[in-house]
């Protein structure tokens, strides 16, 4: 088993070397093991954040590269220019910082408002006659019950910024979804792919989960694609922890003919690769069984009724004598 | 076996006994209606049913079953529900007292002797023939009476009262006694106690209590009726048909309300207001209240088991089912009872104190029959309580013979005077 693992990494390295720019990039909320202590998951949705004293909480996201989520590599800062864009739930641009934390590229911004923060990292590079336009996106929900739930209904729908992000993936909201909602396995999640704000059909999308489950599908003509989050693993009973969260990423790529110049280099085509990363949990209802609950309910009910019946029938028996302990 | 040797002596004694009894009744009513008299028209009904207390009522339907009860602790609701009529047979006549004295020890309480005599001669109110005589074990002499007179043809049934009424055991014990009594009633009357007729019985008695409580409130507002009349009314409750009694009391209430408005009082304001308590005044032995009111006092209220104690505590039933009604009835006769056979009996002292406050009493007259140990013993604790609120108290010991009024007059007159100048 061990040997095959090595060969596997070798191949992966080869791939990395020649088509670096082909690898899609995505933003990860997972905190690397050797991160400093001050970075911890915070808030209801466990967003990786660094707390510097009261109130000044800053979200920290790592930029990753690679299609396989479970062993993707951290994006190593090299000469290519990286831009980032963060929009607050109100649509306002949020001041952010892109720097490196022990050789890893991180994006950090503070998220005081309630609602979905849209964060984007864009890498553009021309090679050959194609502009490789890589977009990594994340929708980070910031919510605390203390702020009440009155505003949830109108903050729910997703926001899109076509003028600055031409090619984007958006997770469609569930009907009864609110700020307490977690994507959980076994659910049908659907996405729509927007090209310059218009849903684009026939785009190849690929869903890759931390547990190694990869599946790809093309968007239908209304630009939507949906995946059934298969419970692709069954952990042994002792290790089940229904609070554990695993990352999954949805990639989409398309090439469109367009002529333009970028950083002095002309190109004829643009190759968009977009990604959106989120967290999912094992479904709560996986290990819940109503069947057993009915049994427990029935047993208790019948048991209590019999107990009461027996207790009440003791009235017919003669008066209960007071018993004395004979032990001297 | 008849106590008195030959039968014709029994007939003779019976005839003379009933004549004396009737005369006594007439004399008592005459005393009540003498010059110091409340002139309440609606009292006439009570006067004449009490006057011919032992006359055979004309319209007496023969097959009516009567259960005689000898104390307030007999649950009358159960008797009504079992289709019978309760009649309280506590004796008050000196005539039957003398007859009872023939076969009871000399120091027995006169009421017990009088009841025994009445039972022996069959001189019960309305000349009823009881199918069962229910005898709660409240006073000791009354409890033993059951055995002494069990030779007569009436069947006696003992209702065991627990000596202490505060503990849960005694309450549970009393509930069992009452349930056994209900079963006994069903076998005696042959009619089953059902939910419907028990509910009707409870409501019937409760309505009567409602009327009496209103009467009690009116008496506390203004002195518009003499104490002797009030005691007469409650004595009528012993045997009268309950529905009629309630209606008549209702009329009396209305008449009293008119009097209160018109401020037509029976005594002037500073007449001393007396609370009567102790051994109960049972018709025709009303000589003490009559005497007090002839001397210018007013019996404002009385804490007797022949008056307020019988009619003040009513039943609240949560669920009108037998399983809730019978315990409710049992509780009503045990928990609030202020009868001195229970020990400790602070309830009676609290009741007296609250009556003193409600009726703003000037003096308490505590009467106990000669030979009645219960009220004698209790006079100590009540006396102490009265001292604490320095309420002048007169302790009297008398029995049924009408001619000991010499001593009574001296004591009562002196007492009223000492109350006046307090």
């Amino acid at each position: 088993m061990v040997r095959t693992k090595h060969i596997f990494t070798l191949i992966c390295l080869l791939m990395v070397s020649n088509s670096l720019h082909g690898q899609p990039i995505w933003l990860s909320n997972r905190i690397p093991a050797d991160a400093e202590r001050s970075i911890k998951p915070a808030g209801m949705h466990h967003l990786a954040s660094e707390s510097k004293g009261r109130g000044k909480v800053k979200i920290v996201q790592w930029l990753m590269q690679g299609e396989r989520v479970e062993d993707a590599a951290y994006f190593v800062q090299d000469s290519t220019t990286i831009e980032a864009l963060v929009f607050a739930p109100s649509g306002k641009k949020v001041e952010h910082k892109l720097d490196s934390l022990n050789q890893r590229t991180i994006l950090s911004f503070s998220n005081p408002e309630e609602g979905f923060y849209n964060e984007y990292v864009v890498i553009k590079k021309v090679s050959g006659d194609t502009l490789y336009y890589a977009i990594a996106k994340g929708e980070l929900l910031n919510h605390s019950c203390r702020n009440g739930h009155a505003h949830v209904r109108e903050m729910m729908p997703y926001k899109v910024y076509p003028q600055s992000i031409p090619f984007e993936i958006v997770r469609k909201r569930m009907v009864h979804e609110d700020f307490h909602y977690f994507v959980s396995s076994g659910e049908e999640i659907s996405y729509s792919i927007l090209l310059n704000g218009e849903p684009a059909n026939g785009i190849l999308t690929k869903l890759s989960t931390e547990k190694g489950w990869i599946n790809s599908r093309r968007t239908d003509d209304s630009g939507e694609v949906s995946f059934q989050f298969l419970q692709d693993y069954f952990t042994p009973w002792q290790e089940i922890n229904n609070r554990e969260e695993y990352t999954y990423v949805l990639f989409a790529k398309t090439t469109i003919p367009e002529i333009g110049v970028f950083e002095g280099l002309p190109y004829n085509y643009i190759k968009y690769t977009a990604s959106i990363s989120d967290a999912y949990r094992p479904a709560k209802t996986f290990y819940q069984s109503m069947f057993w609950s009915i049994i427990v309910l029935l047993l208790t009910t019948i048991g209590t009724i019999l107990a009461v019946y027996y207790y009440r029938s003791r009235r017919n028996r003669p008066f209960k004598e007071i018993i004395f302990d004979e032990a001297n | 076996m008849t106590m008195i040797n030959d039968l014709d002596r029994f007939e003779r004694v019976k005839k003379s006994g009933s004549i004396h009894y009737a005369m006594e009744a007439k004399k008592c009513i005459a005393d009540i209606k003498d010059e110091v008299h409340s002139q309440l028209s609606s009292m006439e009904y009570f006067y004449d049913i009490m006057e011919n207390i032992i006359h055979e009522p004309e319209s007496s339907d023969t097959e009516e079953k009567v259960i005689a009860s000898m104390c307030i602790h007999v649950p009358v609701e159960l008797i009504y529900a079992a289709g019978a009529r309760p009649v309280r047979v506590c004796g008050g006549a000196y005539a039957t007292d003398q007859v009872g004295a023939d076969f009871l020890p000399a120091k027995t309480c006169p009421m017990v002797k009088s009841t025994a005599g009445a039972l022996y001669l069959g001189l019960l109110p309305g000349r009823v023939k009881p199918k069962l005589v229910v005898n709660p074990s409240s006073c000791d002499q009354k409890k033993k009476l059951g055995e002494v007179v069990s030779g007569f043809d009436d069947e006696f049934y003992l209702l065991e009262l627990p000596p202490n009424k505060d503990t849960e055991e005694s309450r549970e014990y009393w509930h069992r006694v009452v349930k056994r009594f209900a079963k006994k009633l069903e076998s005696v009357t042959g009619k089953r106690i059902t939910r419907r007729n028990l509910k009707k019985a409870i409501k019937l008695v409760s309505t009567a209590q409602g009327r009496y409580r209103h009467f009690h409130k009116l008496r506390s507002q203004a002195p518009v009726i003499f104490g002797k009349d009030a005691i007469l009314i409650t004595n009528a409750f012993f045997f009268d048909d309950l529905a009629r009694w309630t209606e008549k009391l209702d009329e009396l209430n209305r008449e009293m309300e008119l009097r209160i408005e018109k401020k037509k009082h029976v005594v002037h304001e500073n007449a001393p207001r007396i609370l009567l308590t102790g051994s109960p005044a049972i018709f025709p032995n009303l000589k003490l209240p009559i005497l007090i009111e002839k001397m210018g006092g007013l019996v404002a209220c009385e804490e007797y088991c022949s008056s307020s104690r019988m009619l003040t505590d009513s039943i609240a039933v949560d669920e009108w089912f037998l399983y809730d009604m019978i315990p409710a009835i049992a509780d009503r006769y045990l928990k609030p009872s202020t009868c001195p056979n229970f020990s400790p009996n602070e309830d009676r002292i609290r009741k007296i104190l609250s009556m003193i406050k409600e009726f703003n009493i000037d003096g308490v007259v505590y009467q106990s029959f000669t030979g009645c140990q219960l009220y004698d013993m209790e006079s100590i604790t009540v006396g102490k309580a009265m001292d604490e609120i320095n309420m002048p108290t007169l302790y009297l010991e008398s029995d049924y013979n009408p001619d000991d009024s010499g001593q009574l007059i001296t004591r009562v007159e002196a007492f009223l005077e000492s109350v006046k100048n307090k």
Partner: protein
Amino acid sequence: MKRIKQYIDQANLSRFRTYFQILAFVVIVYGGYLGINIGDKTPAFACPYSPGSSGTCYLVAVQHGLHLEWSSLFGFRGLALLTGLGTFVLFFVVFNKAWCGFVCPFGTLQDWITKLRKFFGFRFSRYDEASFKKLKIIKYVFLVLLILIPLAMSNSFFGLPKVSDDMSAPFCQICPGRTIAPLLVGDTSEIFVDFTNKTTMVMSVLGLIFTALFFVGSFFKKRFFCFFCPMSALQYMFSKVGVLRLTKNGDNCTRCGNCSRVCDMGIASIADDIVSTNAVVDDCMMCFKCVEACPEPDCLDVKVFKGNIFSSTSEGFFKRYGESELADQSKK
């Protein structure tokens, strides 16, 4: 004024209470759909597990609020806990324990189950004195656990390992409310045995047992669950300063026992205790059935500040319990 007071004293409060309970039941259980929100510090069981609920029972806020390390508990975060408690007390003080008697939907549910029992004519059970005293303590045990477990989840007591997160909102997991409230709006999602791990398994089974006990218990004993409810224990701490008060005037009491017989909770001290004036004990739910059943005038009074708004009168008593058909004829 006097005639109004007289009318109220003789009114049939139980009927009024039944209607009020129906109204409160609708407002609390289905209020969410109507857009009503009575805040998340409600002193009654407005169970948040049911989507329709118009508020949240304060026990939820207590358990979530206490899920803090010591540092933040005694820091600024703890302040939120105190303000929460303050709101709860302000809410509670207005109606005192009448929240249980009049407003709590599960109390109402148990009263309806009692009516069902009465329909079938089953006998109700009562605890005797000894078991009453013993069982009385259970609600305090629940309250203490409800406070300690969340704390133990985020801090380790005496070096013991922290309690696992599955125990979050411990009482809610075993409370019958969690399973019944969603049922009331037709959502059966809360009825499950959760096999995820041992803790969730035990807690969900306990929850189901309590639910079954809730139904069977309240069928045989009136207000069965209220006797063990930690909310009544928590409320009792502040019941002394309540605006609505139930006072007893011992001098007028003849200890006839009517009040303790009609008391759904089976409290005996209301009848036997003629010394203390404040008649509200920890089990009392202030349904005021005792005031209705008291024949003595001015013995039991429901007071708001100084004035009493509903007191026991003999006329009222006889109107409710005494009058028979016979009386109506003679009234003509």
